[in-house]
């Protein structure tokens, strides 16, 4: 009798203790493991940029990234908006360079894993991306002829050690670009083709150096990753890796009923693709139709993968080659952002529409219709407790 009763007490205690422990199905465990940073594959070589993994190129790229001389008025660098101590973003709803842009600055951790760049994917390589703000009148507001002169005067020796000899630029106008002011366009059009190509080559190499630097910016390990490694191994997370019941509920919703993991998948919590999720436009900003307009821009970009400045062969251009070029789904579709570190960098969405994660989760729970095109998301009817749990889970990706 007493042996039987103590056995029974043991069973009851074990059952009760088991209720307090994180319990995941095999499928949930697999999904959790697939999100861990340890599952992030090594960066693939970028054959379109043969300097991508050259340390001297990354070093020059880092110098250029922080150099305000890389702008039309000498006050703005890449790091003005991509702040090194703020996850390489600026905490503003819309970036402010020389002027005010219409888009939220994207953080840079793990950016080199992306197939497409900018919120709408209007560039197809990290080096082609880096060139775009340099000439945008609202960002760095420079022009490629002025950048070529600046590189030769300021970094000529370093540049030549990496990229080879710079040609004589003395007859190149001080300011010229096919994208600039009318005077800059006229100066550009008056240049001999060989000279324009040389300036374009220096300009492309600036992008390749900056891209080489940006390849080194990797996402750090978080509390979630320590938790996920233990869950994947069937071990019990200990210390700060242990999740609270609220964080576990949030994670279960994230990979279950709330369907977040459908798009925010893999170790970077992004599918790298474009979706209309009904995020409202910002009053006062120019019309913004997302991916549908970016498709034409990336096709027209002379620095795209099919262009003359790509290193290596065209086998690296499959993303561009097999790009979806038309369709109603591209209207107001924006890139799925990584959620790593997101909790500590409000505001959110492509134009900083939401000031807190609570607002973001409320949006996805309510799933309003899109002002144009069709939203891919559906109402979730999450309770207050469930919405708070999702936010609690997202915070584990920033701790």
């Amino acid at each position, binding site marked *: 009798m007493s042996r039987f009763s103590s056995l029974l007490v043991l069973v009851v205690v074990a059952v009760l203790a088991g209720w307090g422990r994180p319990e995941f199905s095999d499928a949930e465990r697999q999904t959790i493991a697939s999100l861990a940073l340890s599952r992030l594959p090594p960066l693939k070589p970028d054959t379109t940029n043969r300097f991508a993994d050259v340390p001297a190129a990354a070093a020059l790229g880092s110098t250029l990234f922080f150099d305000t001389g890389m702008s039309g008025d000498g006050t703005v660098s890449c790091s003005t908006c991509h702040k090194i101590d703020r996850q390489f973003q600026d905490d503003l709803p819309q970036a402010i360079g020389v002027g005010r842009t219409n888009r939220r600055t994207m953080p840079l951790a793990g950016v080199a894993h992306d197939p497409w760049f900018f919120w709408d994917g209007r560039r197809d390589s990290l080096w082609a991306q880096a060139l775009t703000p340099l000439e945008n009148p609202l960002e760095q507001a420079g022009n490629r002829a002025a950048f070529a002169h600046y590189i030769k005067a300021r970094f000529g020796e370093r540049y030549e050690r990496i990229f080879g000899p710079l040609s004589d630029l003395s007859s190149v106008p001080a300011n010229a670009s096919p994208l600039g002011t009318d005077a800059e366009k006229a100066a550009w059009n008056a240049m001999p083709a060989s000279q324009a190509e040389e300036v374009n080559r220096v300009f492309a190499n600036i992008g390749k150096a900056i891209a080489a630097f940006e390849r080194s910016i990797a996402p750090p390990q978080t509390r979630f990753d320590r938790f996920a490694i233990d869950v994947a191994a069937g071990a019990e997370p200990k210390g700060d890796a242990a999740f609270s019941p609220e964080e576990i509920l949030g994670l279960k919703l994230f990979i279950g009923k709330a369907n977040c993991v459908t798009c925010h998948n893999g170790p970077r919590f992004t599918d*790298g693709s474009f979706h209309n999720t009904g995020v409202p436009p910002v009053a006062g900003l120019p019309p913004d139709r997302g991916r549908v307009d970016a498709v034409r821009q990336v096709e027209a970009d002379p620095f795209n993968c099919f262009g003359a400045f790509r290193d290596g062969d065209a086998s690296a251009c*499959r993303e561009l080659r097999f790009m979806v070029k038309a369709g109603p789904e591209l209207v107001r579709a924006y890139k799925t952002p990584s959620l790593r570190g997101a909790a500590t960098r409000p505001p959110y969405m492509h134009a900083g529409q939401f000031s807190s994660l609570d607002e973001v989760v409320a949006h996805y729970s309510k799933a309003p219709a899109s002002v144009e095109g069709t939203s891919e998301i559906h109402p979730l009817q999450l309770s207050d407790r469930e919405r708070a749990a999702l936010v609690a889970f997202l915070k584990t990706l920033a701790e």
Partner: protein
Amino acid sequence: MASLWRYLLGGLGLAALLAGVLAVVYLTAPHAPQPSSDVGRSKTTANKLFVATFEPEKGVIRQGELESWLLTLNTVHGAPVEGAAITISGGMPQHKHGLPTSPQATDYLGAGRYRIDGVKFTMSGWWQLHFAISAAAGSDTVVFNVVL
């Protein structure tokens, strides 16, 4: 004392019964339609002109990777279909969106095998690929389900 144990055992018995009932309810509950019965990699086309086989060129599917697949076309009598014009579309029926890329038939590899390059599955779930095939024998279509 003895009666207390009787109650406890009775309670455990009731709990076990409840668990059993819940299990039966869960297992027999209607679920959303799944294509699990039709994920075959080889099938006869809609108008029975061809037998099509669709498989990843590297043997495995990796989510989020731009991959090439092989579409092998034979006549119903087993002869390889050459010179076929193939167009590809598709998407995720449950999400009502199309493919994230535009796959194309890029190479003919002989023996009725066509390389379908630019296939990418960006998320887990049920995907469909529709093939429209035109060859000397005529035009036909086939749909393959891929579940990740």
